[in-house]
């Protein structure tokens, strides 16, 4: 019915959308913190890694700091010997992420209030490396499998239903079930976040702090409480992103590099816009897959996915520096 080439293109587009959802998830964490505190959190990717490591560790009943303990006390402990159910583990990991948010506020950013953005940014770089090392020390550095019971592999149902579209060598669209779950989860997450920000007391306070610190103080909002809250939310988003990426390609230290892919996403979407993070993520996801399929592979020798997003971001920086949805930069004279 359709030429095969076209159908493959559609499949590439769909897969690009799914990949974009994951980029959007990471970018979302950046936006949350940036809006409320003006901090560009370089450690967002590492937070996702740390969350995933902690989740796996808790699920498998690993003894935290086991290498350290064994080295000091000459013992040989590695596992508690129990397995914690996935749901409970996720809850416990969330508790850890809230604790982390509190520590970050208490030990780092409380002392840096009113500093230049570049200093705050440097602090997050430090935080990123510290957390990477800390995660390593706590849970070990080997690649771990994360299985929280999300279905994986191709959705045969979709393949069967869509196979009639093509000719003899088209077997239907191949879409990973994991990607579909990730998309649904991301949509729910965004709805929850928007609902929280719009309709709850804490959400209102959060928006108020994002808008004007002085005014927020004058209506009785505690800035440090709100900052702990946004870091916790960012930790929660990081956990979700960590679960999805971890389930897809194993929990390994390269996970922290996904933060770098979120950068072009943010430049597209704007640093202060939640819808921007979503749309930016989808554009980057779709864009890099389609570009590879249409231009990269046939004409440029492939492997364009590595740099396409940055190229796109560069173009945006030149022509629309505030991004698609960012607040317009107006210099008042």
């Amino acid at each position: 019915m359709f030429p095969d080439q076209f159908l493959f293109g559609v499949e590439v587009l769909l897969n690009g959308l799914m990949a974009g959802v994951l980029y959007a998830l990471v970018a979302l964490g950046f936006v949350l913190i940036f809006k409320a505190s003006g901090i560009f959190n370089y450690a967002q990717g590492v937070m996702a890694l740390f969350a995933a490591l902690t989740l796996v560790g808790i699920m498998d009943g690993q003894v935290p700091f086991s290498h350290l303990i064994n080295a000091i006390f000459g013992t040989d402990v590695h596992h508690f010997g129990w397995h914690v159910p996935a749901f409970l583990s996720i809850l416990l990991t969330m508790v850890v992420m809230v604790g982390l948010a509190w520590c970050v506020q208490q030990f780092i950013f409380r002392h840096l209030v009113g500093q230049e953005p570049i200093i705050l940014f440097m602090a997050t770089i430090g935080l990123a490396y510290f957390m990477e090392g800390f995660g390593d020390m706590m849970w070990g550095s080997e690649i771990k499998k994360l299985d929280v019971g999300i279905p994986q592999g191709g959705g045969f149902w979709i393949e069967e239903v869509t196979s009639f579209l093509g000719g003899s060598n088209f077997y239907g669209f191949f879409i990973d079930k994991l990607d579909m779950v990730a998309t649904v989860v991301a949509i729910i997450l965004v709805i929850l976040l928007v609902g929280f920000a719009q309709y709850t007391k804490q959400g209102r306070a959060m928006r108020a702090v994002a808008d004007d610190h002085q005014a927020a103080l004058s209506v009785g909002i505690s800035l440090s409480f709100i900052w702990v809250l946004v870091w916790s939310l960012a930790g929660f988003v990081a956990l979700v992103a960590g679960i999805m990426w971890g389930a897809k390609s194993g929990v390994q230290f390269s996970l922290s590099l996904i933060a770098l892919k979120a950068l072009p996403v943010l430049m597209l979407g704007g640093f202060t816009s939640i819808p921007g993070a979503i749309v930016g993520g989808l554009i980057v996801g779709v864009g890099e897959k389609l570009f590879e399929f249409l231009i990269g592979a046939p004409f440029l020798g492939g492997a364009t996915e590595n740099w396409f997003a940055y190229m796109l971001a560069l173009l945006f920086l030149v022509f629309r520096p505030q991004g698609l949805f960012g607040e317009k930069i107006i210099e008042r004279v």
Partner: protein
Amino acid sequence: MFDQPESFVTADGRTIGGVMMEMKNITLRFGGVVAIKDISFDIREGEIRAIIGPNGAGKSSMLNVISGFYNPQDGEVWYKGERRPSMKPFEVARQGIARTFQNIALFEGMSVLDNVMTGRLNHMNAGIVSQAFWYGKAQREETENREVVERVIDFLEIQHIRKTPVSRLPYGLKKRVELARALAADPKLLLLDEPMAGMNVEEKEDMSRFILDVNDEFGTTIALIEHDMSVVMDISDRVVVMDYGKKIGDGTPHDVRNNQAVIDAYLGVSHD
């Protein structure tokens, strides 16, 4: 009248109560600069108390001390008969002290209604679960708070811009929205930092009327800063006059107007 320890009724029928807030020997320094030098005064319940003085006299610093934005190096702040330990601004706000700013601090990205609604944040106690399911306490509170907010909006005559984003409003209206947000908190003490700065005569008259009405209708105690003498003299019960961080006068507008030190500070005095 004001030397009475207990409450009394003014000529225009308002009740002035006992001392609500007392500043005792406040000294505030920024490095080597002394912004406030050993100043004491009190604010009585139900009155309109003005702090006036030329530019750079330390008026705003004084207001910032009261609202907790600055903590003085020396001196004591007494509120409702208790000594107040050094506090963060949000803690002061939670004690029922609301304020506006000289350079307007509104949430520019939000609508007028949302801005005024933030004034009610401290009157919302429903737990997150109740809020999530929009059930019981959360729903009741939201309705109550909306009612208060709508009353304030009506009172200050800003119904027509309820849904307008604050960033699009002209200066005079922004000032009024800021007052509305402070009022929505249902404050015991309302601090206004130059509520009429940068306004034309008509807007100043409107603002004066609102300040008087707020005081009259809700019995809110108001402390305000102004450097336009004439406006202040008309609306305040008592006036503190500051110059170069020192208090040079304190009393009813009539007393202050005839105080030689005040006249010198405002008109300048020749030193030859």
